């Protein structure tokens, strides 16, 4: 990539500012990550006494123990099912909505996009209780167990990532030349087939990125997970607190468990960050 700033080399004042500031920010970003990793391989007495930077001795015991101190595997499975289902469903719904917004002019388009984005503004606490009551009522009336079930959580989470998914996908779809799907329409494809045959394949990296983002949103949500789950459907977001309700706070296991639950989302995020930036760019240009 060519130099952005043109012909002149940056002056030393700029280079030094850059070095110092970027070093400080790197430390700020990484120290907690380091603490998490290093403390996860310490024996219990080393995490309950004065903090030390270098773990010595090193033990991988915590990575074994985390699965037995609390039912972590069950929480993990619950989180996986809920987050994956919510992410896939959210993107499936958002693909159609974004297709409509990017390819059709229709009345109420602005109202729709504004209303959907405005849901980001609602304090979660305002609709946590009513939603809980509605789920209980629907359960009593129809026998569909929404409260306490993974299904209820999936529906809830999918709407959390929906606004962002629609917004980002609209941006990606706008970047796919309209001539492509119009050509498909001329060839006799229906709009749904044009969407699946032309637009979706062209925007696939973006769709994957949005799916991962939706997965992350669900994976990290706490408020609704704490209100709407019971013992069998509890997710990681609530379950990790179990390590500290015992007589001892197993800090080393807590760190090990935090690392284990972070790996899937961090890996996914780092893989898709390039596409996320691309999506944000096209969204910002609009």
């Amino acid at each position: 990539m060519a130099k952005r700033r043109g012909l002149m080399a940056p002056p030393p004042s700029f280079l030094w500012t850059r070095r110092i500031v970027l070093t400080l920010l790197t430390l700020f970003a990484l120290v907690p990550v380091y603490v998490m990793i290093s403390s996860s391989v310490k024996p219990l007495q080393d995490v309950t006494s004065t903090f030390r930077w270098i773990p010595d001795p090193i033990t991988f015991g915590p990575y074994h123990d985390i699965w037995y101190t609390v039912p972590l595997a069950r929480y993990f499975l619950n989180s996986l099912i809920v987050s994956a289902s919510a992410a896939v469903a959210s993107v499936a719904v958002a693909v159609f909505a974004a297709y409509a917004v990017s390819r059709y002019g229709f009345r109420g388009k602005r109202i729709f996009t504004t209303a959907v984005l405005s849901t980001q503004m609602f304090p979660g606490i305002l609709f946590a209780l009513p939603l809980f009551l509605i789920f209980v009522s629907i359960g009593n009336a129809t026998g569909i167990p929404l409260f306490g079930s993974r299904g209820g959580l999936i529906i809830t989470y999918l709407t959390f990532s929906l606004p962002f998914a629609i917004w980002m996908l609209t941006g990606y779809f706008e970047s796919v030349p309209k001539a492509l799907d119009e050509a498909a329409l001329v060839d006799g494809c229906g709009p749904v087939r044009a969407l699946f045959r032309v637009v979706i394949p062209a925007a696939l990296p973006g769709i994957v990125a949005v799916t991962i983002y939706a997965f992350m949103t669900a994976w990290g949500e706490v408020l609704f997970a704490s209100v709407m789950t019971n013992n069998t459907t509890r997710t990681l977001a609530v379950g990790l607190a179990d390590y500290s309700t015992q007589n001892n706070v197993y800090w080393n296991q807590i760190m090990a468990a935090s690392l284990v639950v972070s790996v899937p989302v961090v890996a996914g995020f780092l893989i898709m960050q390039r596409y996320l930036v691309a999506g944000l760019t096209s969204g910002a240009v609009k």
Partner: protein
Amino acid sequence: MTVSIRRDAPSAGSDTGRGREPAPGSGSARRWQQIRKGGLPYLFLLPALLLELLIHFIPMIFGIVISFKQLTLFFIRNWTGAPWAGFANYRIAVNFHEAIGSALLHSFWVTCAFTVLAVGLSWLFGTVAAILTQDTFRGRAVLRTIFLTPFALPVYASVIVWAFMFQYNNGLVNQLLHNTLGITSRPSFWLIGHNSFFALVIISIWRNWPFAFLCVMAGLQGIAPDLYEASAIDGAGVWQQIRKITMPSLRPVNQVLVLVLFLWTFNDFTTPFVLFGSSAPSPADVISIHIYQASFITWNFGEGSAMSVLMLLFLLVVTAAYLLVTTRRRNSNG
């Protein structure tokens, strides 16, 4: 609510061909598009619309209704039968001379201070980092990945790590400030007392500045390189370029970014909840946790809903005013 949508769709479908975009392509395709254009987009939007209604809008309306009810634990089984309370819940919430009202007011000010500090610094860190990594240099890709890591971690996991770092006996922060650097004469409590406010602010910044970094980075890619080249020929230095080209070009991105950061931070429940549990120490008693406690711990849902509605009204007013002011300034400057 569903009924009104069903009524909406066909009525909008009847005025076919009123779409704003002229349909290009051959004649048959155009006619075909015109026929479908009316109803089809609404069909595509329907699932999204229904889900948003079910999970966001209907519960919100219920929440507003509940705020006018005397909904305590006693009525929770049969919540539709709870007696109406009129504006009683609101009167209690804004009566700042009584315990509940003054606690709410305190919580509001704490949240405002928390939000201003956390958003301001998150924005600053993110913007500075993005501008400093705008040029290519060795290790830039690695730095980007490092900077984005805090945002990629699940919030609760990183808050738990911070809670560990802020521990009195075995935490890193006291070890660093007291034992290693000797800045404080004795170890401090970080999760109770006045320091808890700063602990909350630090964690919030740590969590959110990467998002600011990401957005500004995206915004920077939209600036034409010619601008920098032209100004360099005219003799502008790096600092001048940042002030005269980069910052003004980022204004549209900043308008959205600051608003999003504001709403996220003001509404943030996860950070205080994971850090403090269901009741935060008074100096860090931000409004979301305050309302959670009012609703789910003291089981006064009517009061909690009234507080939530007040909070929503505040956010609506601030957002509207913000958009009005920033959009006008943008237009007058552009």
